[in-house]
């Protein structure tokens, strides 16, 4: 398990003020009408994404990479719901469970795989090669996403 994993940096997505939050954790904001409550594993994933978002925001190198990369990324949990990450104007907006527009990239995997990737415990390239992770979108976008994860976690 990562010694610098999710628990180390835990800003709330709503504190950053970037659209609808998770609803189920960190109490105050209720879930959106179209957004059913998060289940146990999904709630953990939501926290992991919060921490990942905070790491992205803290990384100068990643911000440099995001400067020319405005994209909406959907993280689709197999048999579950989706989470969205949006990069805009050189920053990554807090993760959400709903999003306007069509995602340019769709990452599909089991909840445990997504959690492992965004907490730095599972190598995304390895998961992709092993067929555990499916990434739909342009190959150029895949490169950038891969580079972000590399900059954040080191592999």
């Amino acid at each position, binding site marked *: *398990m*990562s010694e*610098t994993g999710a628990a180390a940096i835990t800003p709330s997505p709503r504190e950053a003020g970037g659209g609808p939050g998770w609803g189920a954790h960190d109490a105050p904001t209720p879930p959106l009408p179209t957004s059913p409550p998060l289940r146990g594993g999904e709630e953990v994933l939501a926290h992991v994404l919060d921490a990942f978002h905070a790491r992205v925001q803290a990384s100068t*190198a990643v911000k*440099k*990479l995001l*400067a*020319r*990369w405005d994209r909406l990324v959907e993280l689709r949990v197999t048999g579950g719901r989706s989470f969205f990450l949006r990069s805009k104007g050189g920053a990554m907006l807090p993760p959400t469970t709903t999003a306007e527009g069509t995602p340019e990239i*769709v990452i599909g995997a089991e909840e445990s795989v997504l959690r*492992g990737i965004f907490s*730095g*415990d*599972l*190598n995304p*390239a*390895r998961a*992709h*090669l*092993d*067929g555990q992770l*499916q*990434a*739909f*979108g*342009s*190959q*150029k976008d*895949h*490169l*950038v996403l*891969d*580079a972000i994860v*590399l*900059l954040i*976690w*080191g*592999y």
Partner: protein
Amino acid sequence: MRKIALLTAISVGLAFASSCFPLLATTVSSLGAWSLAAIAASGLLAWLVSRAYAELAGIYPTAAGVRTYVAQAFGDRRGLWLALLYLFLVVGLGASEAFILSRVIHAVFPGLAPLPVCLAFVGLCAFANVCGIELAGKLQAFFTYGMISSLGVVALAVLGGAPSVDRAALAGLTPLVSGVSGAMFLFVGFEWVVSAVEEVDPRGLALPRAMSLSVGVLAAIYLLVAFALWVGLAPADLGAGVTQHLVLGSRLGRAGLYVTAALSTAATVTCFNGGILGASRLCYALAREGVLPRRLATLSPRFLTPWVAILVMSAITGASAIALSTTEAVKVPILVGAAIECAVYAAVVLACARLRQKAPEKARPYKAPYGQRGAVALAVVFSGLSLACVFGAGEWTGAVASVLGIAVAATGAIAWRRKVSLPPQGGRRVGVGGIPAKEMIHV
């Protein structure tokens, strides 16, 4: 339907190259009318292997393609080995394309020396790739279909003109095997369309049809051009040089020459560009794994492209093109490429059969129409064709065997000596060989 048309265009564009013309001409030269049978047979084999690709891409819709299929079936190192061999193939193919294009340009504009043209072309493509310039999907499809139909019109016009030449004699069946093995090269690259699945066809439903159509379109145009070459060119013209298609085009006058040269250039651009683009991304991925030097995993912050990998691949291809220009041994990379491709095809059909046993629970949107025995039989055929590429190369047998031996040994050594692999879970927060992660990518 649009997805099928786009995937078909991508597949055809990747396979259809200028090096196909001299290969068609030499096949016609050695086999005469039997060359049509050789092309049809290689088309049938390409279609059969395309079924395995379609099944595997349905299970693993990933741009990593063969790397993943073979790794899942037979282990990571074998998958890596084939991926590295593919890199070797792309360099050889790229060099032969640049070399032939330079000869085509020189034939049309004799004032332009071939070598500078060759290097300028490689440099221009490298620049475009570094800047991330790519043809939009619809434009690419339009470009490819326009190119194929124009070539068909030229071939039909030559056939319609019924020129009276001494036709190549009808050869015996003996050279047919080497003819089929060489003709397999005509289809090299059609399967690289699997790398577009994640982008175009996430559910993998359009790919099986698109690959069938692609092989059909390629076979049809090759048969037509081969027939036109057999009818329109004398035996002496068929076996000489690498610009037989220009001789064919010139049968229609100066305009025919220019049109054929333009088509040849277009074929080289689509094939070469696609090859360098794919190879540079593969380089990037392998550098990320720690197989290749970490510097290759460098992204341009401005263009978001793996610019170091692109420049390195282009430089190696350019150097290989210079070597070809000085030796004129263009047949060597073509036959080495065909031998590698036949070996990859054998591995893919076996991987398809193996994964049916190993991972029967995986969803398969498409299933190849043959079972275990059929796959083994196909693998034996492709292995035999791979050997025929080497031992049927005539005066080039030694050179082809040497280059292939070096490629197999070098890539095998890299794959098997690799000490650093992707940490599957957990692991260190450092990059390859203790290099801090932040230094592994330079943005």
